């Protein structure tokens, strides 16, 4: 066997084993999550309130809380992010200002989420007086999602062939009409995919809501935007760190973690389905 063949085989098997190691860790992780969490899953676990100092009962308020926080965050960050991206790709002048804005956005995208939590506490909770509430947490999460959505939308818009823009303008369309009727519809699948992925990111964040929205335990569902809420990730954190009855609380924590995991899987799956179904319809 010559040297090149040998090094080829070596290289391939090295990469294969790296993949295997990664896959094994993922597998162990999944098996552990399922074996520890699956036992507590039941309709009751999903739809009932926690009872007896959270040693029994379900996660309904945390589910509702996470849903509300995520929805609120998306309602704020999607329009803001999409229109910012449209402005950046089509209108923004002069160049140096755009460059500074891009650097700012990318820095924001790389900022640790606990910093967003502190920012949210300083601005929404204290300065604006929203207290620890659904609205403070939703806005904090919105800011966390914003750079991701802006970058993703910009990329999606840039991926639209410039020929479409030329065709539209040459037919007498204004730049605004070109954006709204041609560029945005063409970019939509990618914009949506990115939005859905940021939903799963937002739904799983703990640090930003710790000081701004989440509560350890709530007897009732939030009644309005000014109420504190329970949330899935924070619920896990609370059960594991502040629980007084680990024997009965740790399984609930694993069950909650499994629910969160399944939720993220479900959302990512939806993103893949949407993307591929729209891609099949229009190609260029």
């Amino acid at each position: 066997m010559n040297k090149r063949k040998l090094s080829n085989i070596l290289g391939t098997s090295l990469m294969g084993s790296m993949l295997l190691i990664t896959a094994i860790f993922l597998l162990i992780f999944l098996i552990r999550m399922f074996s520890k969490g699956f036992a507590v899953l039941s309709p009751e676990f999903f739809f009932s309130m926690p009872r007896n100092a959270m040693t029994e009962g379900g996660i309904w308020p945390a589910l509702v809380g996470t849903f509300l926080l995520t929805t609120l965050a998306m309602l704020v960050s999607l329009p803001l992010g999409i229109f910012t991206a449209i402005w950046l790709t089509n209108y923004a002048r002069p160049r140096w200002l755009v460059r500074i804005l891009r650097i700012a956005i990318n820095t924001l995208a790389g900022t640790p989420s606990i910093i967003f939590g502190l920012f949210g506490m300083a601005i929404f909770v204290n300065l604006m007086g929203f207290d620890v509430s659904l609205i403070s947490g939703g806005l904090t999460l919105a800011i966390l999602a914003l750079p991701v959505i802006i970058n993703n939308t910009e990329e999606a818009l840039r991926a639209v062939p410039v020929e479409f823009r030329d065709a539209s303008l040459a037919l007498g369309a204004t730049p605004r009409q070109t954006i709204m009727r041609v560029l945005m519809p063409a970019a939509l699948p990618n914009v949506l995919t990115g939005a859905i992925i940021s939903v799963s990111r937002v739904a799983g964040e703990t640090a930003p809501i710790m000081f701004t929205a989440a509560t350890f335990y709530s007897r009732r569902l939030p009644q309005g935007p000014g109420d504190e809420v329970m949330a899935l990730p924070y619920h896990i954190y609370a059960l594991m760190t502040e629980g007084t009855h680990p024997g009965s609380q740790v399984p609930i924590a694993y069950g909650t973690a499994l629910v969160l995991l399944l939720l993220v899987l479900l959302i990512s799956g939806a993103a893949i389905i949407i993307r591929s179904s729209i891609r099949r319809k229009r190609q260029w």
Partner: protein
Amino acid sequence: MVNIQIQTSELNLWFGKNHVLRDVNLPVHSNQVTAMIGPSGCGKSTLLRCFNRMNDLIPETRITGKITLGEEDIYAPRADVTTIRSRVGMVFQKPNPFPKSIFHNVAYGLMIQGKFPRHELRDRVEESLRAAWLWDEVKDRLNSSAMCLSGGQQQRLCIARALANRPKVLLLDEPTSALDPQSTAKIEELCLELKKSVTILIVTHNVAKAGRISDHTAFMYLGELVEFDRTEKMFTVPADKRTEAYLTGVFG
């Protein structure tokens, strides 16, 4: 009696410091096909894109001189660029239908004006598709995606889309260079039919094609309009040596 549809006078254009068009004086006759030929980079596409002000999109473009479309100075400060573009249709080198239905592709130029009722849109779409010889091929599937059409059909769809605005002028920028010979022949033939109702300006690399379909030919070289004449005259007795050299294939 000669009718001039477009006239450029002393047209100069710079991209940044690059002097791309030099003192171009070109008359374009109504209801004729005018071909623009010349080697790559001679400025023929740039000149074409002056007529619907598409060069406006390129930063640091500077233009002096005058272009009139009919009576209107299209670079006048008060000229409305969207109105001009709706009167001057353009078809590009690569077929570029929108990722929309066939119907919405053709209706696009009318829908953005927002003043056509639904039934009129339908009539104009049919009229345009018929004019571009595409109606019989697509009349049963107006709602399917334009992306499903073949390359030649897509290009004729782009012609129909440009015709829907009932333009006075149709600008064709090497419209067949991405197409197979049959589709090319069909579009050439179509040009001869279309010139009855619209003035056609076509940029082409293909000298033989210019000879086949055009009434007038403009030969450009290094940003200058070297020669402009009736096609049969230029192709038999070119006045300029450079024209002769290009037509006989000495360079290009």
